[in-house]
């Protein structure tokens, strides 16, 4: 593949990943959020595979396969189960309304473009062009975590943050050793399970997974 094509594809891939993240800000339903996360993971896996194809590095292929398996299939199934368990609680009243959230998301992407500009200019890799978008996704998922109320949405925000970091690594350094990657996966799985337990607990206690309820713990 020609470097131009690769840089185009990496921009395209990371755009898809980012759009899936922004979809979190747009849609309200939990199911839609899970769908967005699944799509994002698949797009991420595809991008990784593309880079792997370009570099001819088998480890990246493996990472892509793992991504597809764990984040594209495994975690979504668990999430679906949680969603079914809690009924589909919608993000009816986020702290920031939808239109504003979207605009903030756009500004965050521009900000990411600014902060990564120098990084991109020094890097020589053809995949560097996607990095600002990956950084944008980092910001966006942080924004999702702080601006949404439902614990489930926040879990998704965390998972997207992890996706963003993985994308950044793949694009910026053409992938990290698979051992590290596996370790990260384990962390994520662990963190995910812990959070799952928390969410269950919150639901047990308050009959809702609206973290606003946690304020009641004070008195």
């Amino acid at each position, binding site marked *: 593949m020609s470097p131009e094509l690769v840089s185009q594809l990496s*921009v*395209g891939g990371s755009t898809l990943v980012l759009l899936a993240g922004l979809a979190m800000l747009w849609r309200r339903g939990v199911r839609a959020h899970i769908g967005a996360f699944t799509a994002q993971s698949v797009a991420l896996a595809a991008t990784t595979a593309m880079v792997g194809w370009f570099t001819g590095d088998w480890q990246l292929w493996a990472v892509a396969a793992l991504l597809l398996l764990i984040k594209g299939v495994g975690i979504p199934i668990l999430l679906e189960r949680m969603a079914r368990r809690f009924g589909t609680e919608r993000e009816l009243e986020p702290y920031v309304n939808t239109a504003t959230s979207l605009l903030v998301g756009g500004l965050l992407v521009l900000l990411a473009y600014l902060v990564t500009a120098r990084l991109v200019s020094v890097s020589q890799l053809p995949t560097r062009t996607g990095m600002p978008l990956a950084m944008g996704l980092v910001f966006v998922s942080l924004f999702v975590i702080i601006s949404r109320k439902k614990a489930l949405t926040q879990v998704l925000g965390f998972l997207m943050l992890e996706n963003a970091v993985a994308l950044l690594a793949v694009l910026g350094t053409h992938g990290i050793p698979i051992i590290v990657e596996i370790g990260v996966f384990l962390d994520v799985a662990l963190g995910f399970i812990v959070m799952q337990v928390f969410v269950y607990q919150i639901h047990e206690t308050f009959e809702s997974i609206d973290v606003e309820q946690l304020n009641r713990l004070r008195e």
Partner: protein
Amino acid sequence: MSPWLLGPVQAALALLLAPGLVGAIRWMKARLQNRSGAPPWQPYLELRKLFAKEVVVSNNASWLFRAAPFIVFGSTVAVTLLVPLLAVPLPFEGAGDLLVVVYLLLLGTFFLALAGLDPGSPFGGMGASREMTVAALAEPTMALAIFALAWSAGSTNLGHIAARMLATPTEGLAPGHVLAFAAIFVVTLAETGRLPVDNPATHLELTMIHEAMVLEYSGRYLALIEWAAALKLLVFFTLLGNLFAPWGIAAALTPGALLWAVLTLALKLLALGGVVALVETHIAKLRLFRVPELLSASFILALLAVTASFLLR
């Protein structure tokens, strides 16, 4: 054929095709609703009937109410002289670029909204207010999408953009273009009063946007406005089809090339119409105050399009 003749030919062709496009979309929607539906040429019959009918005008309406249909119709027809319908280089290349197209369409909207206010009917005012709101909120998306297009093409002239796309087809798959296409598609839905922004088949005054403004019109005036609306849809589809995928557009004004151009244009219009029909079958109308969310989503698409073209420069 001289290039100056091409302009009128384009306008005539657009006027000819526009009602058929609307009819085709209605027919496809009917089929998707498991009905046999009206034949695609139904709109022509309706226009013929309306031109033959009597005109009833409100006693509160002024001369503006009678002038507006001609201005709305005229401004939309003028646009068809500028867009690359059949061939590049365009007949009136120097006369106007993409921004001029946007402003000419705004001219039509402006006068239609005034005509909605003129009879003093509450529905007309409601329609005018909503139409202008949607139009205003759609502007930024359009501007940024134009920005992304123009930057990669090195010009805002429609002919340049199409020609550039023909010269380097890979550009068409660049993320910037795909995103800009998506953004302009959403704007098309909003500006031409399709679902999920406005329901073209609604009978409920309180949910209307476009219909509410034309409730007062009858006879030939209504015919002009409906025709202009169809024409506007065709213009947006042509922009989508011939700026992003200008294949089949004639490079030389030979009869064969032009014929092929007409054929491909019709195919593109049908394809886009099919997509719209599918969309309208699948999704419901948004509440008016959810529309800004849709438009800000399209704005994000346009913003990403520009960012992508930054990254790849």
